[in-house]
């Protein structure tokens, strides 16, 4: 309990004092996770729509695979990306290991299956509802995909939030491919792991609270934005 109190005081001090070291870590956490979610959205949302609307050989296998990959252990993904990016690996020449780019890659791999699987789920029910209308109007496949993504836009925001939650909370993968290097690849979760390992429990808890506030704030902002958008834009 004593440690918890100290943690709250410490967290308040960190936030209110706008501790520059903390701000740096928060900024990098947001940058890495938002980049990963953006890339996963650009690739994953269209793929989810394709799986929902088009019929092609291998589709069922892909759906099963994507659903299974939702549970990928971050440490395993980290290890896999590490092997790809390490000096002796196939992409070693790019020199990305222990950079924020490597962390973005790892988190994108973790977030993609979530985005694809949940988008597929959501857009499948929309497609079922509108399939006959689309065929009646003679829509081409590309138009069907675009329409599904636009009709599902409010639900897809929640899908991306789920992906962001996975990314911002993840520690195993960014630790392995980022290395938790101060001022370069240290993010909230790896900093917490480090402080805990050092025995600085109060400091770790304080950082944990900041992370919670951060995740909560992002969700709140998106929820408010979504509500306003739905009111304005024909929910």
């Amino acid at each position, binding site marked *: 309990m004593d440690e918890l109190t100290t943690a709250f005081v410490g967290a308040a001090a960190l936030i209110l004092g706008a501790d520059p070291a903390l701000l740096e870590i928060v900024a990098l956490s947001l940058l890495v996770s938002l980049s990963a979610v953006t890339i996963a959205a650009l690739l994953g949302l269209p793929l989810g729509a394709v799986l929902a609307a088009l019929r092609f050989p291998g589709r069922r296998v892909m759906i099963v695979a994507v659903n299974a990959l939702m549970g990928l252990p971050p440490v395993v993904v980290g290890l896999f990306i590490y092997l790809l990016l390490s000096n002796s690996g196939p992409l070693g020449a790019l020199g990305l290991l222990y950079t924020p780019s490597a962390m973005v890659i790892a988190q994108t791999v973790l977030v993609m299956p979530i985005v694809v699987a949940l988008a597929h789920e959501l857009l499948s029910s929309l497609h079922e509802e509108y399939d006959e209308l689309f065929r*009646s109007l003679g829509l081409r496949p590309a138009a069907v995909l675009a329409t599904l993504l636009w009709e599902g836009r409010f639900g897809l925001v929640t899908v991306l939030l789920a992906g962001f939650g996975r990314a911002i909370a993840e520690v195993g993968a960014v630790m392995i491919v980022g290395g938790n290097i101060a001022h370069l690849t240290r993010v909230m979760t790896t900093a917490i792991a480090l402080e805990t390992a050092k025995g600085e429990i109060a400091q770790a808890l304080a950082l944990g609270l900041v992370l919670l506030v951060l995740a909560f704030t992002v969700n709140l902002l998106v929820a408010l934005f979504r509500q306003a958008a739905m009111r304005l834009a024909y929910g």
Partner: protein
Amino acid sequence: MALGQPILPLEVRDLMVEIGGRRVLDRVSLTIAGQGTTVVLGPNGAGKSVLLRTLHGLVKPVAGEMRWNGRPFGPDVLSRQALVFQRPLLLRRSVVGNLVFALRPRGLARGERQRRLAAILARFALEALADRPARGLSGGEQQRVALARALVLEPELLLLDEPTASLDPAATLVIEDLLRRTAAEGTHLLLVTHDVAQARRLADRVIFLHGGRVLEEAPASVFFTRPATREAFLCLAGELPT
């Protein structure tokens, strides 16, 4: 009018449709020609909706023939039809956005598109609702938009699948009034219903479907006064008192 050849008269010969191994349409033959309103009447499960969907290309027949003014079904035939579903199936956008959505695949010139939009909004008294979110409208208004979305395509044949089944009497009358005007302006209506009273109000010709077979095909005046089959007689006699 849209470019291309007329698709009527339609000749259907021995059409067979199976869904999930069950025969839903059994050697259906019929003719649709000229103007007016043809009502496909029959009890639930008679295959009415399946017939409509087959004529619209949404269901593939296992056997039989459809000749649209001598041609088989294809994209050009589809583009001269429009279908109104039992549910409005409006998209999450404005009323006019829904109409634009239907027109876009037709690739019309901008001027022609604007002309059609303005005309249909005026004709359906939808101008005041044009910018409202379509899915926020009442059921009757939504079905009116769905009908406008079909007619903005200026179809030669308008297919309607129980379009008033989930509407109250007042909204039903509004839709029926619009349908009468549409038929009078030269679009052939093919209306599927199990509502005998509605069939009486709208039909010029009746196709009576029962158990996947066409039992009668007759002018409305003949069908309603002297049904030729026991099934049709029972269907008319079973009409609920109004």
